[in-house]
């Protein structure tokens, strides 16, 4: 791309946009105009970033498991600013750049205070997230992995709802715990192996004892991020308080960092420990599926319900990852990407009615279909996607992770499969309570249906969810070689 390294271009473009926004707002005394230009610059930046990452994916050779588009500049000591993508990370890069413009459009009107800072925070966050998925240096990865929390923390803390401080505090506390352990582990590994290159570390054989401790340290951090039961309670609060676009990023991308971490680090670097802890992960995952589904069933706040449902869906991801087979891992990858579409869309659905009514209480709604038929149809599609209906992307991830789990353990698969009953119960009940029935609340009497701007945010998500439901190979072909390479390595190492 004009002689520039492609990954760095994608990575830093959002930051350049952020700097541009700050410069223009510094020059512009009129807050209204500054806000308007911030919106437009943010939209253009994120959209161009998306286009370049589409080019990246098109140029990507998915028949190879190697790191591609590699860049490396010495940073400090033997720590490098090193980037690269393989079949496991390239689609997360695309997912990030895909969701960002949608977040900008979704925030167009709903964010009214500190507009400039808001978009700066989002653009910085984008750079950081892209860095997480494309870093091939362990230390560089760690710095970005932790740095991502700051803009997210600010987004919740400044643009969040009433209880935002409590939520931000919880978010902070949990993540802090995980990070400290991981920091120590990273330090040990770099010292021991004498390199911070991820590929080199993957090839380095740690002793089984070392693997166990290192695995636990990484697990502390990734389990919080996923989040896995029982360290999930920060997520419902964070979602409830976050602004709509914040929830989209949180559910769509930040949660995936945990799963990505397991696949990139825990499995290849500590295979013996991963096998050792498989029963623990399976147990925690099926508890997550059943426990959080039952809790979701009783929620009175729409966002909380969807947040709990996210935890249940992430349970399938961890099951798939630790099944150590093709179906499980491919399913986990697919489930993460699909959840990025469906959960994002569900949070956007909540945003649409929240912008109008400023409440997330299920009881304040009911009968929306009478006034908002288009909204009802869109919400129905994503409800069914979340329920895992075949023909939507939600199904493929669920069935593959279950198949992977089943091959490892029939008993755990029974528990996981019971999740499909529960998810139908709570999602359809939510839909009935909010959308069906007569309009009872008089405040809803002249609520307006989605406008064109709102519909445009949903359109790419609708197309993605349905297209990937019927042709999931679009993704599975991309991840196949890298994932199978990982599976083969795992199986030889475990022998």
């Amino acid at each position: 791309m004009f002689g520039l390294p492609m990954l760095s271009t994608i990575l830093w473009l959002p930051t350049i946009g952020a700097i541009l926004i700050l410069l223009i707002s510094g020059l512009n005394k009129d807050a209204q105009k500054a806000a308007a230009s911030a919106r437009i610059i943010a939209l253009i930046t994120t959209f161009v970033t998306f286009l370049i990452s589409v080019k990246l994916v098109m140029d990507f050779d998915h028949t190879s498991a190697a790191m591609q588009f590699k860049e490396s500049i010495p940073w400090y000591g033997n720590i490098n600013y090193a980037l690269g993508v393989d079949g496991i990370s390239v689609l997360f890069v695309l997912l990030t750049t895909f969701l960002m413009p949608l977040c900008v459009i979704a925030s167009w009107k709903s964010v009214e205070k500190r507009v400039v800072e808001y978009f700066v925070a989002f653009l910085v966050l984008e750079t950081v997230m892209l860095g997480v998925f494309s870093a091939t240096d362990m230390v560089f990865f760690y710095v970005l992995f932790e740095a991502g929390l700051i803009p997210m923390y600010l987004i919740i803390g400044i643009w969040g709802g009433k209880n935002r401080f409590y939520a931000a505090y919880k978010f902070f506390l949990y993540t802090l715990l995980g990070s400290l352990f991981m920091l120590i582990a990273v330090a040990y590994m770099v010292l021991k192996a004498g390199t911070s290159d991820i590929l080199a570390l993957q090839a380095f054989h740690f002793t089984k004892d070392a693997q166990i401790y290192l695995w636990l340290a990484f697990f502390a951090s990734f389990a919080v991020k996923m989040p896995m039961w029982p360290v999930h309670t920060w997520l419902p609060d964070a979602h409830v308080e976050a602004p709509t676009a914040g929830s989209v990023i949180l559910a769509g991308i930040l949660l995936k960092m945990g799963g990505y971490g397991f696949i990139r680090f825990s499995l290849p670097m500590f295979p013996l420990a991963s096998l050792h802890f498989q029963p623990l992960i399976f147990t925690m995952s099926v508890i997550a599926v059943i426990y959080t589904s039952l809790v979701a069933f009783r929620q009175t706040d729409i966002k909380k319900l969807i947040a709990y449902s996210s935890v249940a869906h992430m349970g399938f991801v961890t099951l798939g990852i630790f099944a150590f087979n093709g179906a499980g891992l491919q399913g986990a990858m697919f489930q993460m990407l699909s959840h990025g579409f469906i959960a994002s869309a569900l949070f956007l659905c909540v945003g649409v009615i929240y912008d109008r009514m400023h409440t997330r209480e299920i009881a304040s709604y009911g009968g929306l279909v009478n006034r908002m038929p288009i909204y009802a149809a869109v919400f129905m599609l994503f409800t069914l996607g979340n329920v895992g209906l075949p023909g939507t992307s939600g199904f493929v991830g669920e069935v593959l992770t279950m198949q992977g789990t089943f091959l490892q353990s029939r008993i755990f698969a029974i528990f996981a499969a019971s999740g499909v009953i529960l998810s139908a119960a709570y999602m359809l009940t939510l839909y009935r309570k909010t959308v069906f029935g007569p309009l009872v609340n008089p405040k809803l009497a002249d609520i307006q249906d989605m406008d064109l701007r709102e519909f445009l945010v949903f359109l790419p998500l609708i197309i993605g969810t349905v297209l990937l439901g019927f042709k999931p190979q679009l993704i599975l072909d991309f991840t196949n070689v890298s994932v199978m390479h990982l599976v083969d390595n795992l199986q030889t190492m475990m022998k």
Partner: protein
Amino acid sequence: MSVETLALLVVFSPMVGAIIAGLFGRVLPQKVSMAVTTGLLFVAFFSAATIFYGHWSKTIELPEDPIRLFTWIDVAGFKSTWSIRLDAISAVMMVVVTSVSSLVHLYSWGYMSEDPHKPRFFAYLSLFTFAMLSLVTAADFMQLFFGWEGVGVASYLLIGFWYLKRSANDAQIKAFVVNRVGDFGFVLGIMSVFMVFGTIEFKEVFHAIPHHLKDTMDWGNWKLPALEVIGVLLFIGAMGKSAQFFLHTWLPDAMEGPTPVSALIHAATMVTAGVVLVTICSPIYENTHFAAGMITLVGAVTAIFAATVGLAQNDIKRVIAYSTCSQLGYMFFAAGVGVYQAAMFHLFTHAFFKALLFLGAGSVIHGLHHEQDMRKMGAVWKPMKITYAIMLIGTLAITGIGIPGTNLGLAGFFSKDAIIESAFAASQEGRPFASFAFWISVLAALLTSFYSWRLIFMTFTGTFKGDAHGHHDDHAMSDHLHANVAHGGDHHDAHHAKDDGSAPAHESPLVMLIPLFLLAIGALFAGVIFAPAFVGEGAHEFWGHSIYNSPENHILHLRHEVPEWVKFAPLTVTITGLFGALFVYFWNEGMGKKIAKAAGPLHAFLYNKWYFDELYEVIFVKSARAIGDFLWKVGDGKIIDGLGPNGIANDINWVSKKSVKVQTGYVYHYAFIMLIALVAFGALALTKGG
């Protein structure tokens, strides 16, 4: 046209209709959406009929391999391809689905004429048809599951079509969730198939069965025979979709949907999907003992259970719903004893006469302005003579009237008697639960006759018992509340009871009567015409490879050699049932009420459907709520948060501080940790480098 082109037309015409009416129904004139969906359905029907006729008359050769469109999923051997499988089973099912569906589309022009949401209704109907067709033409378990869930969603959408009705909304969720309980088993069954066979394609799986007869699977500490496990799990899926005992509770409630939907989905097609699944999997069930016995047992129990409940229901649609449930039980135990051909034949004839009964009932309901309670009917025959005649044909067909040993009889005579005789023959062969199924099937035939004629007499004969004025007010009120419920306030004059004591009803329009005529032809002649090919001497040639019978299984032939009393048993009990109903509901009007009162608790037990709903409410719904609350408030709240973040917060009295200060405090602390981290790494790198 080649058979491939025809098959594509069958499957995709309804899809195109659904997309057009679904996406553009809001902008197109309503009539366009209706015409497009209905027209495309007839295209599908004529294509399906051509294939079926060709196969039946042996003028078309069905291709060995399915038509493959493109890969759906292909991960580590777990492969599914979007395909159209063409064999005898799919040829039969395509014609059943498209014929009933096209007639229901047509009928809905009249039945839904005053509904403001017609495009949505027709789009859902076509969507359903597409999903059902992709189910019956699947070439592997995954696509079958796609169709399986697809029809489930269409059913969900159509049961709740009148979304203002709370009862309809509850019924639609119940239908979906109970079906998901079955799907839970089904999914585990598919996974077992993949684990045992390494593929989920029907053909490959069925070919490999001889090599896996002795396979076992580990389930925790148990070593279980693989084929039995697969058979049981797949059948659990079938139980959900086909409303068999324990998972039947959703079907009667599904009657909240518009009547054309009940006819198409909850009588003729979707609920038979379980039977289709078991028939397709005949190579599996022919090699199981336990799983096949379970099918026989569950089928027989359902047949008798639903028939007893049907005796005491007063809602005309619910009577027919329980009748459907009971007839599905017949189909299952037929498959369970190994006569899949008879199961499919009964499925085929049942589709016509049951759709006929439902659409006829719909005509009555339409004529009486949405009255469904048979206690408020009576004397409807006079204003609705055509509907009456058609309902009589349907009732004669379902009760299986015909003369044994001859070709004189209605559709149900050929198919139901084939099942009953087969059950007897199977019991002679020592098939598990076959003799139980035989006696149950005779008893259930008696009850079927009784409740079917009870419906006819309560509805059409005697005196009109509806309260015209009260009903009128009620109706006006409900119209006001439910603006989207079909059938507004036309013909309001007709509400007043006529002087001669006949019902204040009107005959349905021609667009509703034509489908009834056509279905009546099916109910009259489908049995006699197709019996030779389906269950007679031509059966093996007709079904070809699509149904597998083990070399020891000769029941289909042995059924011809059963004793005379077995052949006459169904007719005897049917006539007995007819006279019973005549006695109670025709000659002694009002006697039914007295019997109900005298029977007290027994009547209440039947009227309340054996108290299944009450039982499930306590066991599942209430306990799920209680556990959910407990996990949320105590698990998440008191234990996890209490010991975790909140506990820490309380100790250091953090949260109570002023928000702004706290907020900056977080950033500060966080940045501080990061700083330490960076310093640590800097030091590390320096020492390494130095």
